[in-house]
């Protein structure tokens, strides 16, 4: 080995440049949304637009907080946050529960018809949402399912195949010897599943859960349709889309941006709590190659 440390400082600088780049790339549009959310209609129309909200005449920094006040006063929106948590939370839990069952079967058990079952599950998500919408709506009306429950059920059409496929690939990655060792120790396949394999896939479970949660949280088209006759069940994206201006018929862009900022915060808190679970090396203690 020649000069083992010569490249280090440069690499470190490159690494941090990369981190700064990722930070800017990922946050800039969001920062621009915060900026826009603090502007009045007049400030939004200023040319050139400003990087921070400024007074049109004096060009001093001037924050406009009425957008946030309006959003917090909006009952449909506040209720929407709660609705979204209920819907997305239930979808995530159900998808993870049933999804991990199915994924364990597909990833680790021997049975006939494995490949077809994987493809059948995948094919469920090959149609655009628009095209299954009318059919789904008909089914829901016939069965008389209320709006919240129908969202929970129908979102599974998107999240369940995703959960199953991702978790299957993770279960596959776990050595079969682990399962066999447990069986030799007298564990039933199901016991080795939930006592040994499931804890090992915790990072994957948390990751998949987060992705599914946000997918359900963001869904717009189904939510708009199913809550059309029951406004109290509206989720956040629908509530935001249906914002109308306080004074005029003009679209309240500042308020929409304020709402976007507000709904992002609880999600970030959620991610902060769960990202600790995505810990490095959780697997290494148990797996011996």
């Amino acid at each position: 080995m020649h000069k083992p440390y010569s490249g280090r400082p440069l690499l470190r600088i490159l690494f941090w440049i990369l981190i700064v780049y990722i930070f800017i790339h990922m946050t800039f549009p969001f920062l621009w949304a915060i900026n826009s959310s603090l502007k009045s209609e007049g400030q939004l129309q200023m040319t050139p637009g400003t990087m921070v909200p400024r007074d049109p005449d004096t060009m001093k920094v001037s924050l406009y907080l009425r957008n946030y006040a309006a959003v917090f006063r909006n009952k449909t929106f506040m209720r929407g946050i709660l609705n979204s948590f209920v819907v997305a939370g239930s979808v995530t839990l159900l998808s993870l529960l049933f999804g991990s069952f199915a994924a364990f079967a597909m990833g680790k058990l021997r049975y006939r018809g494995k490949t077809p079952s994987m493809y059948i599950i995948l094919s469920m998500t090959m149609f655009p949402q628009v095209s299954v919408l009318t059919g789904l709506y008909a089914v829901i009306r016939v069965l008389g399912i209320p709006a919240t429950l129908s969202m929970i059920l129908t979102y599974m059409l998107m999240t369940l195949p995703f959960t199953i496929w991702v978790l299957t690939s993770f279960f596959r990655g776990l050595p079969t010897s682990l399962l066999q060792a447990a069986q030799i120790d007298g564990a039933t396949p199901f016991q080795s599943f939930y006592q040994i394999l499931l804890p090992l896939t915790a990072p994957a479970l948390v990751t998949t859960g987060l992705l599914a949660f946000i997918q359900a949280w963001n869904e717009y088209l189904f939510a708009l349709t199913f809550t059309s006759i029951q406004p109290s069940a509206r989720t956040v994206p629908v509530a935001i889309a249906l914002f109308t201006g306080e004074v005029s018929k003009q679209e309240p862009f500042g308020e929409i941006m304020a709402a976007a900022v507000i709904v992002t915060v609880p999600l970030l808190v959620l991610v902060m709590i769960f990202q600790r679970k995505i810990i490095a090396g959780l697997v290494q203690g148990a797996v011996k190659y």
Partner: protein
Amino acid sequence: METTSKSLVKSEARLAYLLLVPSFIILIMIAFYPLGSVFVNSVTNKRFASSQKTEFVGLKNYKKLLGFKVMVLPPVIDDATGKQKFDPETGDAVWESPLDVLPTEPVRYKELSQFSFMGAQYVIGATDPDFLQAVGDTVGFTILSVFIETVLGLAVALVLNSAFKGRGFMRMVMLIPWAIPTAVSSRMWEWMFASNRTGFFNILLDKIGINNGQFAFLVESSSQLWVMIAIDVWKTTPFMALLILAGLQMIPRQIYEAAYVDGANKLRQFWSMTLPMLRATLAVALVFRTLDALRVFDVFQIVFGANRYSMASFAYYQLVDNKLMGYSSASSVVIFLLIFIFDFIYIKMIGGVDSDA
């Protein structure tokens, strides 16, 4: 020994079926009828929210969606010289109008695009140029944005997988784009791409001096698709990055230590260990991203409305504006088939997904 392993296999299979039941019940309950009716409606002239009687029309919808013809455009002859006419201003050769060349019976073909090949000019005519254009746009959009997302996502995941101060914070920051509902983030970007200097990108171009700050990103057909790709890449790179990150977490550390002892450098470790071990994760991520990108709807519908379609927003406008349920369903089946082809290629290419461990 033989009998015990056989009975073990049997009980394993029984457990497998039992574990699959809940998922299949849910999926059958919510998918069976809606998906079935898409297929059935696609061969009818069913109208949405109408009392008109529905009739079986066979493959007529598909013929109209996919019908196209390539025809030669004859040159316009200048009477004075007996040779092809040239535009006096631009100097370009003048060809017959596609309107005169394309057939109108039994169905009218409209111009999709033109191209020249070996000195001759050709026109591509289609019975529904909007749909074929939407297919081309969506496939182009999908290939480019999924490719960029995968590369970026991999890079982000590798960076966030290494130990540094503030890693937890960065992981949270990384998810911001994914956490904002598409219905809202599309509006955010629309605003940033505004055609005057209220929009961030025009302010930027103006400051650098490239443009006069009046570029209509969302109207110019040259920039429209790139805008969509930019929005989609920003929005879904976190999805890729997080999945790949989870895949990286599942790779045991010891094998890197072993490789290090054997003298493999970082690049070598990445190519011959990290990437192969990420194969299954990458395959699943690619399959779902491609599937989502081919079905892209929200962004196109919000930003472009009916000015430029993705395949799904085409299906939406046929259903909601034109009430053509049968026609819309046929376009959905075409989308389904396209997605199926894409996924099939992926799975065959990357393997690993349906092979037994």
